[in-house]
């Protein structure tokens, strides 16, 4: 009892002290700066462009860094740090000329050697970068990553202060759009030499983008402010950007409605109806380069060597119900593998795309019979998905569709994301699993290449000689139209084999305050803060 009294007094004393301390926090006297408040659904792993890979990290990095190329406010590919470039006839050599006025946030010029250094760092095995293979067609990338060659052997050379030459071992028409990706952003070599791993700390970190990182409270907010040395600083309207880390969608929505945030990172599906009624003009839903599919484990029965079964399951899914009732955010049902809106490409469609759902179901039933299943040999399969409300609803819906149309018993298994991933990669126990692919760049190749037999991202373990050879042929093509034909044919082959069931194409969804000017929906969902401005009246919430 005495003990308890002592504990109680201690606790109370500490609590009282802390309360007084927090009451004394002064409000920072802010000068009149325009500040944009954006929602981010999770902290970036890192602001080191080579150590991060999430979409959220990319959003922040696009504000504090810039690569050789960039996108304009209207979504066109334009020069970033590079002001002009030439491509050799064989498509294997690219020469970039950098701007004279490109600077780091401490005034140092951005040089070609900075880029060369950064690319070498990207592929260096010691950096252990996630996206080391992003520029896989540059000479020697693969061997350097495997440790067989030194980073110095990379096919990227700084000819002089302003000229960078990149040499490829195979033509890559989408290279330019790859060079807008944050993994290809430059890092400041002297900073790394001086600070080592601590070069990413606010205060040490140098930025060559429109903003610099002032502060980062993990789990809370990243505070950016204008980089006066940015070559296009005069066109940057907003002075400061706060990326608020908000992991719960409802919390983010509430903060938006309370006027604390200008732009949300996403919109909770359950609230879309209500938002459409309350503030339709602020809701921005646009096609996004991503496909959501259910993959089949092709290394084991029942889906191994059983295309009729796969086709049947694919046909019996009523995609219209899924996008209207389940996801309800304006997603498009997917009858192709490659989403619409991709540069220079016309997606192929599944053979049954034009049939009615009833027709499809009838056809599917026939296929199931052909595959050898029926009332005396009932089919039982497992479907795995990761913990999330929408995924759950999707799985439940499809479970009942397969039951009602085909008489199949599906056990749906909800796993944590990490677990699902591990199981999918192991290919031991999975049968049908939820998956998706977001495009890395605006080209059909990013969606089709994941189905090549040697690609680690090929979760179903699809291995088709015909598909692989078509992709190879496309890769050799310098002529863009010829290349497109090969890719489209490859997609047709892929769809006919049903390694997975494409269900819908993603959409990007944001709430954008009417105070924000310059927001442009685009298929990559890139929204650079430097292209935006705030209406003066509602500038600071």
């Amino acid at each position: 009892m005495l003990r308890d009294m002592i504990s109680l007094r201690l606790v109370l004393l500490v609590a009282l002290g802390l309360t007084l301390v927090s009451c004394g926090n002064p409000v920072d006297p802010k000068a009149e700066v325009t500040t944009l408040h954006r929602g981010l659904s999770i902290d970036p792993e890192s602001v080191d462009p080579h150590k991060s890979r999430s979409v959220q990290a990319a959003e922040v990095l696009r504000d504090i860094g810039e690569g050789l190329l960039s996108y304009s406010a209207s979504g066109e590919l334009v020069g970033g740090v590079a002001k002009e470039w030439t491509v050799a006839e064989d498509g294997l050599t690219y020469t970039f000329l950098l701007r004279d006025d490109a600077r780091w946030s401490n005034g140092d010029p951005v040089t070609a050697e900075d880029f060369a250094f950064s690319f070498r760092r990207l592929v260096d095995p010691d950096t252990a970068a996630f996206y080391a293979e992003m520029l896989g067609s540059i000479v020697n990338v693969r061997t350097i990553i495997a440790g067989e060659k030194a980073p110095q052997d990379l096919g990227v050379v700084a000819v002089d202060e302003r000229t960078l030459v990149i040499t490829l071992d195979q033509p890559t028409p989408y290279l330019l759009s790859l060079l807008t990706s944050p993994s290809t952003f430059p890092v400041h070599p002297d900073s790394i030499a001086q600070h080592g791993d601590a070069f990413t700390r606010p205060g040490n970190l140098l930025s060559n983008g429109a903003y610099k990182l002032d502060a980062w409270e993990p789990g809370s907010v990243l505070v950016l402010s204008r980089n006066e040395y940015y070559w296009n600083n005069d066109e940057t309207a907003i002075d400061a950007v706060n990326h608020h880390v908000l992991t719960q969608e409802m919390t983010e929505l509430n903060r938006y409605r309370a006027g604390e945030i200008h732009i949300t990172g996403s919109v909770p599906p359950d609230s879309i109806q209500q938002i459409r009624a309350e503030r339709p003009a602020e809701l921005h839903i646009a096609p996004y380069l991503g496909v959501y599919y259910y993959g089949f484990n092709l290394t084991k029965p029942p889906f191994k060597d059983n295309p009729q079964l796969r086709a049947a399951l694919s046909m019996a899914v009523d995609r219209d119900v899924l996008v209207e009732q389940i996801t309800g955010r304006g997603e498009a049902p997917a009858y192709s593998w490659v989403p619409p809106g991709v540069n220079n490409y016309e997606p192929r469609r599944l053979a049954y795309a034009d049939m009615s759902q009833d027709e499809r179901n009838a056809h599917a039933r026939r296929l199931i019979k052909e595959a050898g299943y029926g009332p005396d040999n009932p089919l039982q399969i497992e479907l795995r998905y990761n913990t999330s409300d929408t995924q759950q609803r999707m799985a439940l819906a499809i479970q009942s569709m397969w039951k009602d149309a085909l008489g199949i018993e599906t056990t749906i298994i909800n796993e944590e994301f990490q677990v699902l991933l591990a199981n999918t990669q192991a290919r031991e126990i999975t049968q049908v699993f939820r998956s998706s692919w977001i495009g890395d760049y605006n080209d059909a190749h990013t969606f089709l290449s994941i189905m090549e037999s040697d690609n680690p991202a090929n979760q179903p373990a699809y291995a088709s000689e015909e598909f692989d050879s078509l992709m190879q042929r496309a890769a050799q093509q310098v002529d863009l139209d010829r290349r497109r034909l090969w890719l489209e044919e490859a997609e047709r082959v892929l769809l006919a084999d049903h390694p997975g069931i494409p269900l819908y194409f993603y959409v990007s969804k944001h709430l954008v305050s009417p105070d924000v000017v310059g927001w442009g929906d685009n298929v990559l969902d890139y929204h650079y803060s430097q292209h935006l401005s705030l209406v003066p009246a509602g500038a600071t919430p």
Partner: protein
Amino acid sequence: MLRYALLRLLGAIPTLLLVIVLAFLMVHAAPGGPFDAERTLPPEIEANIARAYHLDEPLPAQFVRYLSGVLKGDLGPSYRYRDHTVSDLIANAFPLSLKLGGMAMLLALFIGIAAGSFAALRRNSAIDRLTMVVSMTGISVPVFVIAPLMVLLFAVKLRWLPAGWSGNEGVARFVLPVISLALPQIAYIAKLTRASMIDVLSSNFVRTARGQGLGAYAVIRYHALKPAMLPILSYMGPAIAAILTGSVVVEEVFGIPGLGQFFVRGALNRDYTLVLGIVIFYATLIVLLNLVVDILYGVIDPRIRQR
């Protein structure tokens, strides 16, 4: 005296070690690793990453490496927040959780004791029943229901308080989270106070005081309050544990970067070092706290020291 303290300290070490080993094994037993993601990585890159983070070494070796780091005070880098060390994260998050919990505790005590005493005074009246039923909602409705409701009402509709945490200054942003956290405890404390106060109020010395014409308030303040507090004291331990549990949810709902949030993120992300770091931190804290209390206890009551 010193000997006593040292002995107790030494006794705490095996405890801590056990905790570390247990947590280490559990975290590594979880399927999936810290660097798994939607995109399967090419095997060479996976190998590079495993090497950089020593994940390719056998488990005992990893444990030894980790332990030697801990002994030097280095809890390692976070696997998910790669620009931050675990110590940094804890150093920022802990004071926040502490403030939140402390304020909630104070609020709960203040209102709980007041409400309970009030109800005890007006025993069996309508007011008594009402107070009790209202405080019961605190323990009957989960905090992840109450909190969003409050945010909806006070922040979104009325705009009296901020809806979130980041970017807002001052005390206002503490209000809703602290209330959410305190509510269940207010109920328990009110109940306990009421029961105990009723006992005390019916005891002889109180009745004597009342008989002498002392007003109700004065009676409580000068005579009844202290003895009535005894059960509350015993409840402090469980109360603190309950606030700790509740803080995990409250931090999640309001987006507060406290230890609870980081732990949940860490567990879900398989951020081994972060999870271990938090567990070790808490265990050490509690062990030290117990130690301090024991020492004080020993100082006050010399008989204990001879054990």
